[in-house]
């Protein structure tokens, strides 16, 4: 378990359980046909001042009558005024979130969960491997690295999606590359006008020659993709202690109270979602655990 206490708006001794703060939708950007990025601003100025998140953490976003959904925060942690959440419409709550308009109000609780250990990776080479919506919780990492670029070694992003239209944040890649972050893309299938790689994300590893002792891997995406990422990392002798995965499970409380998000002995909302792989290894890949 790697506890990562951060300032949170959900106070430990609240009179009532699970009551959200309110946030206003400042902007909505349609990323792909069923993914939208919501820019939220907490209504209460004091809450805005107190709120601080680390890359990899998530908020519980609430819509009265529909429920709550756990959504990763996808913005730059240094940006204090607003928070971005990239939402994929997969259920009632998330679908409704993607259809909000600026001016709408959303309940917000958080931040919850463990963070990517970006600080601990100074002077290291980083490989960020992700697919689909998995890029959202890694985007804050990219911004944190950009904000302190000189502190890190080689940084490479391996990213894939189903089709070119499903790639997220495409207009930001040039900026990331300008900051010396190598961006390698692939898609599962493409039309003739796509000039990039066609194939699954793990094959992007074939183009890398990482130094195992100083390379750290952060991965987030479909769990089966992460299996292959671990496999490729191991094949290049990257130790388990240098691999971090972000897991996803059904969450209701976001605080390790309701029992929903367990993987083995861990509560993904509290002991994760970011796990160091050596802690996760005995339970990862056990069918139906």
């Amino acid at each position, binding site marked *: 378990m790697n506890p990562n206490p951060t300032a949170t708006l959900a106070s430990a001794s609240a009179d009532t359980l699970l009551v959200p703060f309110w946030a206003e939708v400042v902007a909505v950007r349609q990323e792909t046909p069923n993914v939208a990025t919501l820019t939220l601003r907490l209504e209460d100025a004091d809450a805005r001042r107190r709120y601080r998140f680390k890359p990899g953490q998530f908020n519980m976003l609430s819509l009265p009558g529909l429920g709550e959904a756990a959504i990763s925060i996808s913005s730059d942690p240094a940006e204090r005024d607003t928070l971005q959440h990239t939402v994929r419409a*997969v259920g009632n709550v998330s679908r409704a979130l993607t259809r909000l308009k600026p001016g709408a109000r959303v309940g917000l609780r958080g931040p919850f969960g463990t963070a990517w250990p970006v600080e601990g990776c100074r002077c290291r080479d980083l490989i960020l491997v992700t697919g689909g919506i998995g890029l959202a919780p890694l985007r804050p990492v990219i911004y944190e690295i950009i904000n302190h670029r000189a502190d890190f070694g080689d940084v490479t992003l391996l990213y894939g999606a189903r089709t070119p239209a499903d790639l997220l944040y495409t207009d930001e890649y040039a900026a990331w590359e300008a900051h010396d972050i190598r961006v390698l893309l692939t898609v599962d299938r493409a039309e*003739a006008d796509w000039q990039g790689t066609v194939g699954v994300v*793990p*094959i992007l590893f074939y183009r890398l020659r990482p130094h195992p002792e100083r390379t750290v891997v952060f991965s987030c995406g479909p769990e089966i993709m992460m299996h292959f990422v671990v496999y490729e990392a191991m094949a290049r002798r990257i130790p388990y202690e240098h691999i971090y995965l972000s897991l996803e499970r059904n969450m209701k409380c976001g605080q390790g109270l309701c029992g929903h998000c367990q993987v083995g002995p861990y509560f993904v909302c509290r002991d994760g979602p970011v796990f160091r792989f050596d802690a996760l290894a005995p339970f990862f890949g056990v069918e139906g655990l």
Partner: protein
Amino acid sequence: MNCELDEETLRALWHLPWFRRLKQEHFAALAQIACLRQVKAGEVLFREGEPQDFLYVVLEGRIGLEIHVPGRGNVRLMTVEPEEVLGWSSVIPAARRRTATAVAVLSSRLVALDAPALLRLCEEDPTLGYLVMRRLANVVAQRLLITRLQLLDIYAHPAEEGCHE
């Protein structure tokens, strides 16, 4: 098409991990049956259904593998990147014709190995034969694992009638 490798291409070939581990005489034998092939973006390298002639190693660029699906047109299944092998079907006895069409997505440089000559070399020198076949087994296995992942459609959009969350 040049049929003798120039210094620069020989060096590039020698830099590839598998080739680098070969004994000198094996590398020389392979270099003997190799040609440099250059293609412009959009050019077809070989077509689905054609008989086999060359095994390729990509040095630079990107080659797309496509299959024609009647009613859908050409579907690009995967791309072959630098340092990867293209056209394994030319050396595997079971595959008699090209299994896909290879189109240059970007302008590319490839080393083409004469397939019948390669098979003869393998017969004459079983040690080299084993090394070549083992490498090709790895290539095909890798393709299979990748294809399986693509088949699983891991980013699939869930059913619209989800009543959860």
